[in-house]
């Protein structure tokens, strides 16, 4: 009991070097325990695709159905893979191309999974560290600890292996440089790299620009944001497969155009654009925009989760919002419903998203198809999934509303 009291009192104080190291080590330890024994097939598919990055021309590369990220992401992931080769060993290339069940029974599978995931884990620790730094001193250790222990972060990054950690790190650095260092230049460059890694941080950019005082500053910042995007996309201007496949294809139709109310002949109200514009317009009317930027920036991503059949690993985008919610509570409480219904969605989905991810431990689990649907049948499973997503969406709005109501200035107050 004494130890727990001491830990709680340490966490509620301004961070010391030792307590920061201890919290980061706890997070790293948990991730190390999970990493070698969990596998989502996206990881293998991505790794195979990354492998071909240096072997194919841009045109050939983006004609592959699984090449779905912008070029900067592949440059970075390819660098990670090459850096990990020391740990991976010479047989890795052969392993990654083995048939599924054979690959799972390979005696080196734990080493391979750990080595592939390690760069992502280290990036996440860096992201969490800088994110905690945007808060008031007394809240920094708490913010860091909540990120390290967050089950959604553990699932979507360490178990799943999510490349979205790259743009999220850039968004966090953008906020950090702006709020804590007062640097518009570095902040804009960070946001620019975020968009160059993956397109979703673009939704946060207008919010950042609205916090700047003059139009001159806004144009300057917009140019800095556009620079990394333009430089990395310039070589792909004539690669039609990239634009058709990565920018306008894939999930974008489902996310932006699927949820709609018919308004008349050939005209619909698109929920995504409507709600995004609503959040942006509301932000333009508030007075303390700079202080409220982190909240609104992450709320700008909410419409994707509220009005689309989002991919479960995308939930990683909202970890900063969840941490803000956790530390805005006086007691150690959180929105149980959000976590419960998020994991219920995963539980009700096909086995490869839940129990099947433990296939490195027990290869038989990879042969399971959709156990819940086998019991409940397709219609009932889909109904349950829709109910869970609806309650999850309501919980998500509640979380954002709670943070807004708490008047979050104290979260950022200087010591």
């Amino acid at each position, binding site marked *: 009991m004494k130890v727990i009291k001491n830990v709680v009192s340490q966490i509620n104080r*301004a961070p010391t070097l030792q*307590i920061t190291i201890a919290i980061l*080590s706890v997070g790293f330890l948990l991730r190390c325990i999970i990493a070698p024994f969990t596998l989502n097939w996206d990881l293998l598919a991505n790794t195979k695709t990354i492998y071909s990055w240096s072997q194919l021309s841009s045109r050939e590369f983006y004609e592959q159905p699984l090449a779905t990220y912008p070029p900067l992401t592949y440059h970075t992931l390819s660098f990670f893979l090459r850096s990990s080769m020391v740990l991976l060993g010479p047989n890795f290339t052969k392993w990654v191309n083995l048939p599924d069940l054979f690959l799972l029974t390979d*005696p*080196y599978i*734990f*080493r391979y999974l750990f080595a592939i995931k390690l760069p992502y884990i280290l990036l996440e620790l860096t992201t969490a560290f800088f994110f905690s730094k945007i808060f008031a001193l007394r809240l920094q250790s708490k913010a860091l600890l909540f990120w390290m222990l967050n089950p959604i972060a553990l699932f979507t990054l360490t178990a799943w292996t999510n490349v979205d950690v790259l743009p999220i790190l850039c968004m966090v650095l953008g906020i950090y440089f702006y709020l804590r260092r007062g640097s518009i230049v570095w902040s804009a460059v960070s946001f620019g790299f975020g968009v160059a890694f993956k397109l979703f941080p673009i939704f946060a950019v207008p919010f950042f620009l609205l916090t700047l005082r003059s139009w001159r500053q806004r144009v300057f910042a917009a140019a800095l944001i556009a620079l990394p995007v333009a430089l990395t996309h310039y070589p792909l201007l004539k690669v039609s497969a990239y634009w058709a496949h990565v920018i306008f294809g894939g999930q974008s139709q489902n996310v932006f155009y699927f949820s709609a109310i018919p308004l008349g002949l050939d005209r619909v109200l698109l929920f995504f654009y409507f709600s995004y514009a609503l959040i942006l317009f509301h932000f333009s009317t508030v007075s303390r925009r700079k202080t409220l930027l982190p909240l609104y920036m992450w709320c700008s991503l909410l419409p994707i989760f509220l009005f689309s059949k989002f991919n479960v690993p995308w939930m990683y985008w909202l970890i900063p919002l969840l941490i803000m919610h956790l530390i805005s509570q006086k007691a150690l409480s959180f929105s149980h419903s959000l976590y419960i219904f998020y994991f219920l969605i995963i539980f009700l989905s096909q086995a490869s998203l839940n129990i099947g991810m433990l296939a490195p*431990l*027990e290869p*038989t689990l990879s042969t399971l198809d959709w156990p819940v649907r086998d019991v409940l049948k397709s219609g009932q499973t889909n109904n349950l999934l829709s109910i869970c997503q609806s309650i999850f969406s309501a919980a998500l709005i509640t979380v954002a509303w709670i943070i807004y109501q708490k008047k979050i200035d104290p979260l950022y107050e200087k010591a």
Partner: protein
Amino acid sequence: MRRLDVVSPFGSETLYVGPGNSLSQSFVPSHDGLFSFRFVVLNPALGGAKRYHLQILDKEKTLLREMSVTQSNLSWGLPIRFDFTPISKSKNQKFYFAIKSPDENKLEEQGVRNFNEQKLGSSSAEIKPDVREVIEKTQIQLTYSKQDVYPLGELFYNDLATYGDLNFETYYTGSVPRLLADTAVDFGKKMTSDPLFFVAYLGLLIGLGMVIIRSYRMSIKSPRPY
């Protein structure tokens, strides 16, 4: 509850099974309780009426288990699950899986044989276009690998050993505690079969644990703000 036992990885080669043309594969389970054999079929006539016998035989080729299916039970490119009453003493015993057609049709028999002999490289006899079309549209194929991917077993075409192995998986069953214990044992074997990783990984976990304890103690005794 079932657990994976033997795996022979997927390959891209195929052989036909039809009247007078059978395939079999020998295998050696590493656990008692053998109860399922999975293989991949390419069936061009979904809902067709052709019949097949799936059999498990012992090393003396005595029939142990059998199931009859029709083409309507088979799909294109998906694993077919042949589950049977568990064979209690199966560990390290040699078994055969066989698939045969009880139908009789001289034209199809010759056509399938010509096709398979061409695929195996033992004949280059020309197949008439009309026969080719009939065979391709009506007869099932099983996938196999031309390499010896499963050294403990052999592939047989019409009871003659041929190079390569069928693509298959076998499963065994048993009590839940036994299967969980087997999972734990296999986990331990996997960990220790890569000793370099095992030692480094264990060292990392212990090291991190020590850093956490040390940092916590120091933060109480002599906190260093930064």
